């Protein structure tokens, strides 16, 4: 322990350790970007190929829900950043609150997602081949809308479920990690010299926000 920082043996001092950890985190974030990015590349390519089909698919997404979720995530990003801020200025109590609100926002996001998903399943919308076009068309005719023209609508929802699903998994992982930070924060592990874990998890959480910032127009607004 140096100045309240548990410095591992192979590091010179606390700031050496912090800078190393920080670099590791950024490298990891670059891999996250590339991984999500692969999906975006696929999405863009097929969007160019089948603009009609993508437009037909997007009409089933309620942009209002996406909009609310965007606000929720941005707000959670703010509270996450504040969590780090309060650690920096040595106010762990406030940091705990900020983190707790962040987790709560994550939960709200997931609940909204849950309703979106179940609503889709209800209409027969599943990813890919499992999409029930007949059921969907029945539903459409019952509300007086024209039937689906494209035959491979499943692909749009394949993208939809893969992208938002992978994002959702990240949200859950993020929530778990924030809970761990919260626990450590309550235990008093962190101080202005040592808050690497919160900082790292924070960056991860912002990445989640970042991805969503693009997912929102991409999935909900392309109609």
């Amino acid at each position: 322990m140096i100045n309240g920082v548990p410095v591992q043996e192979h590091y010179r001092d606390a700031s050496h350790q912090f800078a190393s950890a920080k670099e590791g985190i950024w490298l990891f974030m670059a891999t996250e970007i590339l991984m999500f990015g692969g999906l975006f590349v696929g999405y863009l390519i097929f969007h160019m190929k089948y603009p009609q089909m993508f437009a037909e698919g997007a009409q089933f997404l309620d942009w209002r829900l996406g909009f609310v979720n965007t606000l929720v995530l941005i707000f959670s990003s703010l509270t996450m950043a504040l969590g780090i801020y309060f650690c920096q200025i040595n106010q762990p109590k406030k940091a705990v609150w900020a983190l707790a609100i962040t987790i709560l926002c994550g939960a709200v996001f997931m609940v909204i997602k849950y309703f979106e998903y179940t609503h889709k399943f209800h209409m027969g919308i599943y990813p890919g081949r499992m999409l029930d076009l007949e059921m969907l068309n029945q539903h459409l005719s019952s509300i007086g809308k024209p039937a689906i023209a494209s035959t491979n609508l499943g692909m749009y929802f394949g993208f939809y479920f893969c992208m938002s699903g992978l994002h959702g998994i990240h949200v859950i992982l993020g929530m778990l990690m924030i809970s761990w930070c919260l626990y450590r924060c309550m235990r008093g592990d962190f101080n202005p010299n040592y808050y690497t874990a919160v900082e790292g998890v924070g960056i991860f959480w912002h990445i989640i926000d970042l991805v969503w910032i693009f997912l929102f127009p991409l999935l909900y607004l392309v109609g």
Partner: protein
Amino acid sequence: MSDNHNNHHEEHHIMPLATYYKVAGALFLLTFLTVGFHALREYMGPFSALIAFSIAAVKAFLVMAWFMHLKYDKLSNKIIFGSGFIFLALLFVICIMDIYTRLNVNSVL
């Protein structure tokens, strides 16, 4: 040692609270803007997508620069994170290049 002189200031940069609120405010505003433009999409045609993504890019920048503290981070970390995007662009550009230069079977080049 390579990074002997990492000054404390850079490592634990503390931004004033107000900045966070300002950034968050801007983000909320831009989100409303996105939705606002979405409502007008009938009039904008192809530009609506462009606008939506430009706004998203600005938002992304805000998050990266301030929330993720990248603005005050080391150059090396900026490069690392940036390279993720660059190689992604590479994948995209070349795939598109292939797909849009495929000739039809009757082509005589």
